């Protein structure tokens, strides 16, 4: 299954954003933007973005904290090392291990969450314009057929696109 896309290249972020808004308003699927820098105001045009990363971070922190404490406390219980009648499970030093493991797992889960939610690493060919890594702002939108493409192209050109390309990508 191949998906056809119309990709417009813009010299400035505002024009690209306006074109994306118009495409969405004209009934196209939600377009995706490609830019050399993070663009501001995308959410106002294309709708709010929600990220699951924070849940990953939280889960990682909790799992790490529990594992860290269990690691230290479990070690103390299994390898008994009584010191002058003091408690076997000593809280202050074990809190340090807990703290470090909380952060370690928090970091690792954040990375996992990032990869999953940003769909990286890429496992299939996707629409890409190398100019968008330099100084162009691209708007890519899925089109069904030639007539649909021409409609998208006219909207893109009208909004100030310097160039409109017809591209293909493997559908997910």
């Amino acid at each position: 299954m191949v998906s056809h896309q119309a990709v417009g290249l813009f010299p400035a972020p505002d024009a690209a954003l306006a074109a994306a808004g118009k495409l969405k308003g004209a009934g196209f699927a939600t377009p995706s933007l490609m830019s050399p820098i993070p663009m501001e105001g995308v959410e106002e045009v294309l709708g709010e973005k929600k990220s699951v990363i924070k849940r990953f971070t939280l889960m990682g922190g909790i799992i790490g904290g529990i594992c860290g404490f269990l690691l230290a406390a479990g070690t103390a219980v299994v390898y008994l090392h009584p010191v002058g009648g003091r408690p076997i499970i000593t809280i202050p030093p074990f809190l340090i291990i807990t703290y470090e493991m909380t952060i370690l797992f928090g970091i690792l889960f954040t990375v996992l969450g990032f990869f999953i939610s940003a769909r990286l690493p890429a496992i299939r060919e996707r629409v890409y314009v190398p100019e968008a890594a330099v100084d162009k702002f691209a708007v890519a939108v899925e089109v069904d057929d030639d007539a649909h493409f021409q409609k998208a192209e006219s909207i893109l050109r009208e909004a100030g696109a310097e160039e409109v390309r017809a591209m293909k990508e493997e559908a997910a």
Partner: protein
Amino acid sequence: MPDNPRKLQFADVNDDVVRSLTQTGSAYYITLTVAITVTLVCFFFPWFYQLNYGIGAAGMNQPTVWGTYLASFIFWIGLSHSGTLLSCVLHITQSSWRKAMYRSAEAMTLFSLMVAGTMVMVHVGRPWFIHWTLPYPNQMGLWPNFRSPLMFDVMAITTYLTGSSIFIYMGTIPDFAAVRDRTTGWRHHMYVMLSLGWRGTDTEWHRLGWAYTFLAVLIIPLAVSVHSIVSWDFALSLVPALHQTIFAPYFVVGAIYSGTAGIVTVMFVLRKYMNFEHYITDLHFDNLGKLLIVLSLIWTYINALELFTAWYSGTSTEYEALKYKLFGYYAWLYWEMILFCAVAPLLMISKRFRTSFVPMLILSIVINIGMYTERFLIVGTSLSRQYLPDSWGVYVPSSVEISIMVGTLGMFSTLFLIFVKIFPSISIYEIKETMDQPGEAATSTPGTEGGAD
């Protein structure tokens, strides 16, 4: 390039950075050869000698069983502190002057941590058992004791190394993608792998922004904990002058102080030899100078406090340790440290000094010499003056130790030189963020927007 009055465009940033990666002059190869030679001759050769001969090749003995190896360990861990920590703090506070320099600063963190880790191996004498410090299931009935500060160290440093590597990598993914499109051959294949198929879509930027901020928030307390824990290696002993509650903040401030000075040194070298004059400007030196002077004042205060606590304790052992530090065998090192780290940095009160590149370079090196001395004094003077005169003795580093100390510099330089040819050493997309957006009127110069916030 500096004489070129034309305003920088987005494409110029890509050009400059790709050029810094692909065009390599003979000066680079000469420096790399020297660095590798120093590493092999001054670091690995003496280390192999020590492994073969035994740990007696080092000057460490009773009562001073910790020497320059541990001083180097603390020094390099300390140097690692400013990079990622400063980068995270400036990211959270949205200081845009961070953007031109943070990548190299983070690399500094990573490589100093690697050097510090190697120093531990040199110090322990039997590095082939280093894996015994890790909690892994084994048939020896062996498991680490998590009440020991040394175990805190293992956990903290492993976490910090993991966190810093991930942080620098995540921030570089978009730049790998930008470089990927411009390179050919093996470089292209490498960047295809490293960029993971990044396209710069709105969703990718959004996710990266979130993940990056979360990482920054996690790494700040981590970095503070790492050097606190290193300080507890010493403070949790019962040695006079080491058993002090001030040690954690003292180490953390010292670490950020020497790390910031290290950034100044690295920025000077990058600016000069990688032709990044457009991106790393006097504004960065000015801001770093302000930061340094604040840190030097805090550091001086804590040092005064340390003296006062020892004097006020009224304990004969603490008092003896204090007297020994100020007037004993190592006193000249103590006063050198005060001169280098407390007095000399006062020069940075002058803005003219802060914005002059060569004086700042010299001062940053002077500060780090002073900070190395500080670490040596913490380890050396305290252990050589313990409770009873039968545990008094002078420690002088052997030639093996001194050589390895010099060799760490070569190792750090080698790693850094390899880094600047693989990683874009300034952040392409973040520099662009500070520039005028295409289609806008020209108002600012790259990397300087936002000023000293």
